[in-house]
């Protein structure tokens, strides 16, 4: 049995220090080839990051067509999926990220009003 088929560890188990809240963001965007949704998502997230997290983010774009085995490990079902690895807790946003407000809230860059 493969280890990575078990659910990811609960986010709380990750090491977290209080100061990272406004610090570095590590984001991973999972896409599938050149589908319109994937292309839109890349454009949208890049724009959001540049506008809100300039200089303190890291964005990986992973094409599952190239690395299909990653889908199981990261529990990816929907495409596109954006995962916030850091800061904890782990967050997932699915969709082409066209709703900027929801993305910002989802990434907890902007607190809910």
């Amino acid at each position, binding site marked *: 049995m493969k280890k990575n*088929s078990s659910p990811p560890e609960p986010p709380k188990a990750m090491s977290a220090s209080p100061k990272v809240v406004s610090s570095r963001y590590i984001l991973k965007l999972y896409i*599938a080839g050149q589908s319109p949704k994937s292309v839109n998502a890349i454009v949208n997230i890049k724009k959001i990051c540049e506008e809100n997290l300039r200089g303190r983010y890291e964005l990986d774009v992973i094409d*599952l*067509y190239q690395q*299909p085995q990653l889908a*199981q490990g990261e529990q990816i*079902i*929907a495409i596109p999926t954006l995962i916030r690895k850091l800061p904890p807790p782990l967050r997932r946003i699915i969709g082409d990220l066209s709703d900027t407000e*929801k993305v910002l*809230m989802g990434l907890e860059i902007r607190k809910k009003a």
Partner: protein
Amino acid sequence: MTKLKPAAISKPAAKVRSISRSRPQLPKAPTGIQGLDEITGGGLPKGRPTLICGGAGCGKTLLAMEFLVRGATQYNEPGVFMSFEETAQDLTQNVVSLGFDLKGLAARKKIVLDHVYVERSEIEESGEYDLEGLFIRLGAAIDAIGAKRVVLDTIETLFAGLPDPAILRAELRRLFRWLKDKGVTAVITGERGEGTLTRQGLEEYVSDCVIVLDHRVSEQTSSRRLRVVKYRGSTHGTNEYPFLIDEDGISVLPVTSLSLDHKASSERISSGVARLDAMLGGKGYYRGSSVLVSGTAGTGKSSLAAHFADAACRRGERVLYFSFEESPDQIMRNMRSIGIDLQPCVKKGLLQIYADRPSSAGLETHLALKHKLIDDFKPQVVIMDPLNSFVIGDNQIEVKSMLMRLVDFLKTRQITGLFTNLAQSGNPLEQTDVAISSVIDTWLLLKDIDSGGERNRCLSILKSRGMAHSNQIREFLLTDRGVELRDVYVGPEGVLTGSARLTKEAEKEATLLVHDQEVELRRIELERKRTTLEAQVAMLRAEFAVQEVASLTIIDQEKAEKAQLAQGLVDMGLIRKVDAKPNKQKGGSK
């Protein structure tokens, strides 16, 4: 033969759906699950998705898993199990008890287990999405081992985990089409919804084959059933079939599809009671026939059954004894008291006593269980003691249908079945509670005759198909050497049994003795008369002889006198010098 009342019986033959095997048909992927392939005519539609739905705990996941494991181990078709609920670890542990080694199969690249984890609270939606990730994931798993079979268990969970059902529906539709294009045989499980087969109406998308599982409880006993609701492009059994989940996995029993075309053996087997064999045309029961022993409480039904079991074991045949009222130990102890020792038969493995309460499971489950046991043990004789304990409350019709199917099943296997039936006192004896008399070939009736302050058992044959059987009532005795049958006394007072019979027999004997003595007396009298008569005859003869002698003497004397007289005259004449004229002598002689 006794003509039976035409009980309203739906012949099982009417339920038969022949599953044609000769014509070319849809390619099928055998499930390897006992009975299911029979119902579906070979398995699930190959290269198409099949929906398996049912309520919680009815065995969907297990059925899907068994389909996959059997495919991997028996048909060399590797498979992917995509679980949306249980983790791979849980799944592996859950099926270990069934002997499925998922770890080993995964290591040998026969099976891929993939747990899809969807947590709604972690997911935010922004804009349109699709399930391409799932496709890629499934595709990667399929390609990794060259899978031919795929299970999605339970994909409906996605509806709880992902937003926007409209997108999901469209994507699922695409998924099933994609699976079809891939050419994999897929099993999709779904939870039963209200008024629909599945909560999200998956049956609208997966419509090649739909199997519904059911786990229902009636009269506080549960039974599992399976029904093939739909199977495009193929005939299939349409009834609800009971199925079992046990240590061998799932077994479905297509018990309702039995036909009436079993062979009838003309071989005869002993009932274990010599006198009873004599009553049954001298040879006993037919092999493969069904025998019913009915009678009121304590009339010796089980004893007859034990005799039969014992006789079968002595012939070296295997006997499966289903007891619904006594434990195996109790049966053996009780039978020992009438001189039947079943212990050696059990030890030799010829006799298996299987005791359980009828209430331990639903009727269908019982039937399925019996089937399985019979299939495993392959007995020549099956005994069920007693049948009517299945009747609980108001389920007579179901019991009847179950027993009929059981009898049919036994007959197709050429197994001789002996059933006992406890007749309720008050009911007519010729009527069983379960009304299966019409499927019974030989029916023995045990009766209590209550007279003269005692109860005595009587046995008679109500019917016995295909043989000349005795019409006599026999007294049925339980001795310490087993069952004995005796002639009853039939006289002007009616049928007498027990001590009344003994008394009557003694009386009869006495009368006979008196009669014999009278005859002897007459014979002696006659002898005496003859002797007397003969004596008289002898005496008369003697008297006659005496008289004869006397008479002869007198005659002789007279002759002599006459001669003397004549001589005297001559002499006188000579003296008187008479002339020689003797003719005138008379007139002038004086």
